[in-house]
């Protein structure tokens, strides 16, 4: 596995850089792909597979940024339900470094819904490392028909040892306007918090276990309740994180 990863990473790197002069005037470009979460969640509806991955390609200051996240129901516990992707989103952005620890991002996002209509958004955001080494990601998405979504994410890596790392994270979603078609109200829509403990077999590969908690608020929660759904759910998760 170690060899495989090295080969894989090596070949990508070789493709991305040119062995030129020691004093290189042409900026080399690099590519990094990180699958931050690829996990099974023990949900009431059955096992849910969730993922969160991102990647970039570029130089020191300008990068092309890509990310995807979503959930898929794998083996439904209730009859009449099929294995299906519940929700997924992809983003593509131009990532530009503007301060020592901060980048801004300008891009687009598409939400894929299995039954409901897709949503397209323009995005503007900042990503970086705040004092005390919190990784922060804040994005404002502007959709069609005046829809707006503000998403705030923060994550921290707590080193228990050089290889055991505990990662608390939190995400908040706020909407500026109702999206009744998708059962979303304005104001605070949801909070999600996670706590994952990973073991880095090597830097690039780390299996983990953890817990994930999600709760809906305001009109969104009311709409979910009215439809007979749950507004809060805690799950045990197990997965793998890897990058190259």
């Amino acid at each position: 596995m170690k060899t495989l990863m090295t080969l894989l990473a090596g070949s990508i790197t070789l493709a991305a850089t040119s062995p030129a002069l020691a004093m290189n005037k042409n900026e080399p470009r690099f590519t990094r792909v990180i699958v931050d979460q690829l996990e099974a969640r023990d949900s009431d509806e059955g096992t849910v597979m969730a993922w969160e991955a991102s990647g970039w390609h570029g130089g020191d200051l300008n990068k092309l940024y890509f990310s995807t996240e979503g959930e898929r129901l794998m083996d439904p516990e209730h009859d009449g339900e099929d294995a299906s992707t519940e929700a997924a989103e992809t983003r593509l952005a131009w990532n530009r470094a503007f301060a020592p620890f901060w980048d801004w991002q300008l891009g687009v996002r598409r939400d894929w819904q299995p039954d409901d209509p897709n949503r397209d958004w323009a995005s503007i955001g900042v990503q970086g490392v705040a004092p005390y080494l919190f990784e922060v990601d804040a994005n404002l998405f502007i959709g069609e028909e005046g829809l707006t979504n503000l998403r705030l994410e923060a994550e921290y890596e707590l080193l228990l040892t050089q290889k055991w790392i505990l990662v608390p994270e939190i995400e908040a979603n706020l909407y500026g306007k109702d999206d009744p078609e998708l059962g979303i109200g304005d104001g605070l829509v949801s909070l999600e918090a996670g706590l994952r403990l990973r073991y880095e077999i090597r830097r690039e590969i780390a299996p983990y276990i953890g817990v994930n908690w999600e709760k809906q608020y305001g009109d969104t929660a009311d709409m979910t309740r009215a439809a007979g759904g749950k507004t809060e759910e805690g799950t045990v998760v197990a997965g793998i994180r890897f990058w190259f």
Partner: protein
Amino acid sequence: MKTQSQISLPRRRFVQGLALGAAGLGLGLNARQLLASQGHTGAPTLTGDTFHLTLGGTDVNITGKTRPATTINGGIPGPTLRWKEGDTITLKVTNLLPETSSIHWHGILLPFQMDGVPGLSFDGIAPGETFTYRFTVKQSGTYWYHSHSGFQEQTGIYGAIVIDPREATTHTEARYHADRDEVILLSDWSDEDPQHIYATLKKLSHYYNFNERTVFDTLSDFRNKGVIETLKDRQMWNSMRMSQSDLADVTGYTYTYLMNGQSPANNWTCRFKPGERIRLRFINASAMTFFDIRIPGLDMTVVAMDGQPVNPVDFHECRLGVAETLDVIVAPKADQAYTLFAQSIDRSGFVRGTLTPDAALSAAVPDMDAPPPLGHTEMGMGAMDHQASGHQSMSHGDMDHDGMKMGDMKHHGTSPARPAPFAVDSNNPDLPPRDSAIEHPASEFGPGVDMRAMAPGDMLADPGIGLRDRPWKVLTYADMETLGSTPDNPIDSLQADREIVLHLTGNMDRYMWSFNGIKFADSVPLELFHHERVRITLVNDTMMTHPIHLHGLWSDLELGNGKLLRKHTITVKPGEKLSYLVRADTLGRWAYHCHLLYHMEAGMFREVRVVDSSTTPSMPDTQTQGMHDTHGKDHGGHRS
């Protein structure tokens, strides 16, 4: 540590390599026989005035894995070249690699076309081509040579140069006399492709650091230092978003450290007769590693640094920067073995060898020290001396001043006495105020620079992080002085015609490195006028130690009070400000860079152009290039 012995058969990596095999290893000898005939004493020595070097691809086995390497005449290191001062020498370098290559003669004074930097001196040596270097040797001492193309220096293209003086002047003096002469060439080897190392650093800069602070370190600090003190200390590091353990970018996690090409397990060994005086010529030919060198039980006497003789000083340990060389004399009297011990600055690995009168004897190998955490000094907070308080009125950083003062006091308990800061050097009456050096140019404020030293200070007498509390003598720049240079009669003028201030800058997280916040790709050449004497002041605005190398011209480090130390590579510690004088006596295009290979690649590199004073050069913009033209009205003048 792997115990696999000796470099494996140079199985050819490239088709061209077969030609090397035939040419370089001909005469019916196979490689193993050839190695056997050399024993384990390192590379062969070539003498004369004409040299043939062949750069090729070879598979080596240093760690137990067979990996591709780049070699000179089939070996790592390449042959030791023994020149004679005054000779005009010819070096024919044939490139059998599938990519452009080059050889740079590190620290050698020569016409710039012979300096071997692709893009500046020449176009490089294309695959299959032979380039002929020819120049007259104008100096003596210990130097080295290496590729200046890509990362070939990391994969094995380096070797030692020893130049015998034309007249045996210094050598005949009793205190410089040696019965035995040995090159100790230190280097770092990785099984990883250096392109991959570089890419890894760009993706995750702390990848190779397995000494990061953990929760348990904080808990133990709570117990030992108290909660308040700990939180104050953590507050500084956390608000700066800096790692307190970032001593080396590339570490023993991937590196195997080598002495004359031998791993610690292989134990490079030198035989001696008790009572002999042995000259050890240490060369740090590594890509990224600072070595702390000592020989437990044996005093060392330094007699030369960077090839230039110095007044002898006794010492026990020294930190040798990348690309520096140090000549020491040891005189073991006892009939016992000694360990040559060199540990990396971050204590992630070491290399050792043995000095012994008898192959049956061996010596204990000391344990590595615990890795030292970076402190206030490395943060550029001026903790090493009282300048910090002097600069407080000017400090505008985001630093906690209370924390700074506490740092001051702590360090004063252990720091040795140091000479007066050079700012009050009475021998230099027309010195401009050096305080200007902490005014950071506008170009330093951008994504590529993650910190600026608030109160950089004189640290020439500081042994450096991890060596401050030694119970034995640690050699520092302040201890040495170039032989024959006195304040009244220096080797070259103490007066500068012009001042240049450069800040060493970087962003560890993004793995960007630069001068004054401007990386090479965005820079314009620094222009010097032929014959002028220029003072370069360097301010280290990073938390790393950088070995700064100017090609083709001497760097006369100012030790204060008119003392000079003539060097080709100057190590600048975190939080340090130092200055050196350069005589621009050779026209041409010269490389000027940090000698940490991946820092250089990332952009900590400038072209220095020495131009004729009759032409009107386009002076680089003051703001962005840090040219502080304070008093140099007669640019062309040769004032000494």
